């Protein structure tokens, strides 16, 4: 069941496009904003609201990597693994995070606090290496800053 708040936001997205279906991805994002990820059940609810079949909507949902079709933690760490960050040694950051959090890419910490995902170029290559946690961008990373940064995310 979509909440009233979700429906309201989805309606707004629908109002910006000429056909309802065109707002399908936006609707998924709305639900993800509220629930962190899009479960099969949420997907079916959104599909019904958008007057689409679950297949039609899931086809789109699974195409885009920023729609999470599996559960994620309270905070999603998106580590840039593209070229400039690679040159600047992002792999050290990855190893540190993996060790520190005890999770590999795609996994969520046992306490449900963090999910670690690789991500392509964050568009801040002059300040590599970089990562995003939720909506926040961190650049010019060094290993010793990581623990401080992680602490901010309960």
């Amino acid at each position, binding site marked *: 069941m979509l909440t009233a708040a979700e429906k309201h936001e989805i309606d707004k997205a629908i109002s910006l496009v000429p056909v309802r279906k065109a707002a399908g991805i*936006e609707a*998924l994002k709305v639900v993800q904003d509220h629930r962190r990820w899009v479960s099969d059940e949420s997907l079916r609810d959104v599909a019904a609201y958008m007057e689409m079949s679950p297949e039609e909507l899931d086809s789109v949902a699974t195409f885009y990597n920023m*729609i999470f079709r599996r559960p994620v933690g309270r905070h999603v760490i998106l580590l840039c693994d593209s070229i400039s960050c*690679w040159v600047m040694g992002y792999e050290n950051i990855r190893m540190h995070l993996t060790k520190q959090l005890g999770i590999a890419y795609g996994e969520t910490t046992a306490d449900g606090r963090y999910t670690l995902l690789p991500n*392509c170029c964050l568009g*801040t*290559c002059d300040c590599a290496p970089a990562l995003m946690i939720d909506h926040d961008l961190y650049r010019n990373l060094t290993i010793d800053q990581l623990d401080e940064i992680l602490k901010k995310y309960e």
Partner: protein
Amino acid sequence: MEKPLTQHIRADKRPLTLKEYEQVGGYEAVRKVLKEMDPKSVTTLVKESNLRGRGGAGFGTGMKWSFVPLNAPKPKYLVANADEMEPGTFKDRILLESTPHQLIEGMIVAAFAIQADIAYVYLRWAYKTAGHAITRAIEEAKSAGYLGKNILGSGFDLEIHLHTGTGRYMCGEETALLNSLEGKRATPRAKPPFPQVSGLFGRPTIVNNVETFCCLPHIINNGPDWFKQLSRTGDAGTKIYGVSGKVKRPGAWELPMGVTMRELIEEHAGGMQDGLKFRGALPGGASTDFLVEQHLDVKMDYTDVAAAGSRLGTGTLIILDDHTCPVGFVRNLEHFFAQESCGFCTPCREGLPWVEKILTSIDAGEGREEDLQLLNFHTKYLGPGNTFCALAPGAMEPLQSALKYFREDFERHIQDKECSYRGKEVSAVH
């Protein structure tokens, strides 16, 4: 040195408010266009200015617009491509975050030229700061009457909406972007028909890059000749260049079109980090061919970079230094491309993962003699026209040039069954 696009950016990078923007001449171009010009003459003027698209392909902007049937019934669409996901590229971010009104003004000019009534800014999801800036700027422009119905009493209507992406590099490709805006999978469309004829929702549509739009107000205000003289070469205007990799001062700068690679690296980026030597660079993002030492004096414009065997692309250099493994470098790129393939056409969907696997195995010291042949066959057959869109051909550019310029590195990996760069990398110093 004139820097029309960036000169008003505040030191603290806070976006210019409408008022601040107007104080430095903002929206003059809109007034001029709406009050003094007709759509055709705007297009003609832009054609004369020789502005070439800053999204990577360098297609003439005025020319592109001229294919839109002016008398086609509404709606017609205009889209600002702010998806910027080409690895190594971070130029549009600067414009989006700091001077959103400049983009909006450029979009109004373009929309008028093609008589579009609805416009979208297709912004990549990761650009949160830019998202806020643009949302606010659109609101401001609307309340000041630059957007909406009957703009400045001219009878011209335009609405602009912000649309944030949901990930995937393909969304930057203009036809895939349109599919994405339609709420579909971001697979590209066949051309022809071009979006100018059948684009968003089957209507005439123009897609331009953010930087392209930002040039427009200045061209309108100062004329095509002024725009041309900004450049050091035949390709007009200034360009936002960038440098990333192990240089002393990575960054981005607006410079006259046609500065040399050497100037960029040495003067603006402060030269290579201590102890490192320049081995090569991708001149315009991940999908351009390597240029190497012999090309350092190549002028960074569309024509000369092409003559040197690469593409200007987005004009943002990614530097390969002598302590970084070219095989690993290319492996990282091909991993990216294989991940970002949309999966629509065979060569890209199946070829890129194969290339990545070969490179991974060479990098790990498990390569075989035949592997180089296999890589060659991919670079030959994943070329333009063979795949459905330009993603896979782009992916082959760094690979084919790496095989040309750094062949001995590949061969050494295979012979020695190891990577001799391991442990040599200097960790990032800040």
